[in-house]
């Protein structure tokens, strides 16, 4: 190990750098899909140009403030009163213009490429196209797969390496859909549907955020995008069709009863929810047991589900569930939790 210094130095740099590029599931600096990669290229180009500009200004700046500082004994010196210089002024007008053109050309071309409506419409018509309707609600996300006619929420499942076309809409107020690792954001307006697409290069679970200020729990309006293999995805779609919210164990069927009394007014446990989006007031729970998180922010454990059922307000201020379902006893919460956790594809 002659090179131990070098090795340790490199690993040290790697550690520091990883501190600067962040978590691979949510950093724009570690793009994991085609759109994010394109955007990362543009970010890099603009950064290089801008670092160059900053470097030039800094060098010139340090030179002038050090070189031309006032020295003792020169109190009466009057410097030459220079009016200006046309040559110099032309120079620092033309050079920035050139730099900006270098940046503007890929910017414009990428802008058109990313929101090419015709291309998206064409892709959508393909037989194997993957389309997801994203409906944003005060503080949760619904993902509807119109081709398979299934609805899920909070975890969006997509096949790896495939272009996924998204139709996005805000159901109550304006939100914004952002999965930093996979693609830049787009707003979910209440006035109409926005379209974008994304894809994931490899399997994994990517963090998603609401990026438009939407109220007390804006910070907690998080979701996941899970990229799985094509087979797994196809299988998932098929299984979801069978997710009708039926309890399979005795424990769970107790919970199902409570669910039918207290929760059904807003929540559905059937993935084949055919009501219009505006009528779906709360997250669909058909595959709740499979989800990564409770309420988008706490690990999906029984303890957290119970905590949520007991007092949602303590976990997500301003949520619309608080006060809608009456008081639940501990036994009821236990049964309900057992039922909810049983709602999963892999039984």
């Amino acid at each position, binding site marked *: 190990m002659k090179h131990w210094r070098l090795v340790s130095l490199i690993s040290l740099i790697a550690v520091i750098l990883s501190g600067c590029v962040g978590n691979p599931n949510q950093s724009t600096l570690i793009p994991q899909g085609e759109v994010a990669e394109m955007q990362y290229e543009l970010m890099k180009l603009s950064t290089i140009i801008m670092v160059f500009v900053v470097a030039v200004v800094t060098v010139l700046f340090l030179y002038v403030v050090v070189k031309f500082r006032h020295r003792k004994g020169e109190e009466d010196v009057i410097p030459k009163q220079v009016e200006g210089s046309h040559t110099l002024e032309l120079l620092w007008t033309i050079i920035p213009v050139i730099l900006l053109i270098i940046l503007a050309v890929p910017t414009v071309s990428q*802008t058109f490429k990313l929101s090419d409506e015709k291309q998206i419409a064409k892709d959508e018509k393909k037989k194997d196209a993957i389309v997801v309707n994203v409906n944003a609600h005060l503080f949760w996300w619904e993902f509807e797969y119109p081709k398979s006619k299934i609805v899920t929420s909070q975890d969006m499942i997509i096949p790896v390496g495939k272009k996924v076309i998204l139709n996005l809409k805000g159901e109550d107020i304006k939100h914004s859909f952002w999965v*930093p690792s996979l693609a830049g954001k787009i707003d979910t307006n209440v006035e109409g549907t926005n379209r974008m697409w994304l894809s994931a290069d490899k399997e994994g679970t990517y963090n998603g955020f609401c990026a438009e200020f939407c109220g007390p729990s804006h910070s907690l309006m998080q979701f996941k995008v899970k990229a799985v293999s094509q087979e797994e995805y196809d299988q998932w779609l098929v299984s979801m069709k069978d997710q009708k919210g039926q309890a399979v164990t005795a424990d769970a069927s107790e919970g199902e009863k409570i669910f039918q009394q207290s929760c059904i007014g807003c929540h559905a446990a059937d993935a084949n929810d055919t009501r219009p989006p505006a009528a779906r007031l709360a997250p669909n729970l058909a595959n709740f047991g499979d989800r990564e998180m409770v309420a988008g922010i706490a690990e999906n454990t029984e303890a957290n589900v119970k905590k949520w059922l007991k007092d949602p307000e303590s976990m997500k201020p301003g949520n619309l569930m608080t006060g809608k379902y009456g008081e639940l006893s501990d036994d009821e919460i236990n049964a309900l939790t057992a039922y909810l956790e049983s709602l999963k594809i892999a039984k």
Partner: protein
Amino acid sequence: MSSVGHKKPLIWDYLTTVDHKKIAILYLIAGGLFFLVGGMEALFIRIQLIKPDNTFLVGDAYNQVLTMHGTTMIFLAAMPLIFAFFNAIVPLQIGARDVAFPFLNALGFWLFFFGGIFLNLSWFLGGAPDAGWTSYATLALASKSHGVDFYLLGLQVSGIGTLAGGINFLATIINMRAPGMTYMRMPLFTWTVFVTSALILFAFPALTIGLALLMFDRLFGTAFFDASLGGNSMIFEHLFWIFGHPEVYILVLPAFGIFSDIIPAFSKKRLFGYSSMVFATVLIGFLGFMVWAHHMFTDGLGAVANAIFAVATMAIAVPTGVKIFNWLLTIWGGQVRFTTAMLWSVAFIPSFVLGGVTGIMNAAAPADYQFHDSYFVVAHFHYVIVGGVVFGLFAGAHYWWPKMFGKILNEKLGILTFILFFIGFHLTFFIQHFLGLMGMPRRYFTYLPGQGLDTGNLISSVGAAFMGVATIVLLINVVYTAVKGEKAEGDAWGVGRTLEWAISSPAPEYNFAQIPYVRGLDALWVEKMDGNGKMTPAEPLGDIHMPNSSILPFVMSLGLFIASFGALYNDGLKNHTAVGVLILGLVITFGCMFLRSWIDDHGYHIHKEDLADEGVKA
């Protein structure tokens, strides 16, 4: 003080004053207080974000603090503080005895002041606004407390004041310049005030319309922005940013002007490329109106709109770059004295460049899909607004303090403030670029452990503490100087180039006993170089016509303040007490307007015999 014998109690004097120098002090005090309030709010934000899952300030309480931090800093701190310098300096720089409309000037201040107080009273009356300083319509309409109504009414009242101020300075600069003070001889600060005032004139009406329509939606049952009733909330975003983007230049252009006065003064050189600086200022002001939709790149406006606004935004970098290099070349070959004011000015250059280049990065629309509403943008606009505007305000405060108060701020404490603030500023905001790139959205009151955001946020919070301490040192400095400071000369720094340094510090009530004759750019410097050392008068010594002070601006603004409460609680005109209060307030305001029109006010004269003791010397 003036030798004219009309001594009044200090408070009454300031409540009724129409003197631009006293109004400047009012703006400085009020803006300074709001700056402290906004700063406290910033510290609360950074305390909450110091570690993941913190519970210091969560949910709606955090949103209120966040909203009020932005709103206060922009509308109630930065705006009045630049107006403080407009008032304190512009009439002096152009050789005028006051602004064009002294009464309107006082009215502008009191409207701003009462609007700001009204907005902040929301803290005690059911909660502050919580929809962000941008107050986008869907969220604002969904907000349940009266907070947003305080925002809408308070900003409309203070907005009228700002608009009045803008019109006043346009008229002043067009009409009140001393003989020989042609446009191309005006100091650059005056030029930036001129362009800024024009921006105010065109930008603020867009805001007022947006706020008024939103107010009607919230308080009087209309549906301009309610999509479910056929309205469109995107219109509000457009109106807001048609105001909001020029607002950035409204704030930063005067800061550019301040630097453009300070850097030549302490380099003992004339401003490099004066004409191109003027042209760049005008061009920035013009382009500032062409780029608002870059705040809306992720709205889904479509590729054509995004591409056009991306390129237009990039274009602004060119005139801004010209300015940066002109400042550097002004220092080149100079004899630079690093006073506190100069330190702020030179430190501004690299700091602002960082904010500028990230602005260009944001302009690249597809990259902005990643940057938008993330901490990258938070870092960007704090680099622009703190690194540009706040540095400019600090520089201007140290530079012109003797002209406003007759004493030079303590330099040792000033340099200490500078060092602490400069370190704290970069510590707080530089890391935020990376937080944003690492996927931290803006306006989040928390982040989860394991998202890789812990260290960056901790560093950022530590930096904020530095800025807090720096501000305390500045306050100590103000008190110390008031008590111990020595009286300053007319040309307080000995390097004055422009007209304000040709008269005593602080300036006498009438500014110039005799209006000076201007023979070139940097009027005082020209006389110094010709060996005269003082300005040549353009008129014989005579009686000076002065405007009378008046309590009407105060009462007129108070009327709108009272009316705002009525509007706020009117409850669809069902609350009759509130409707009565609304009417009462409007009656007070319109009554004052009637009185102002009815009573002939010819002002008074200071006789030339009374001037002789001090005026001529100055």
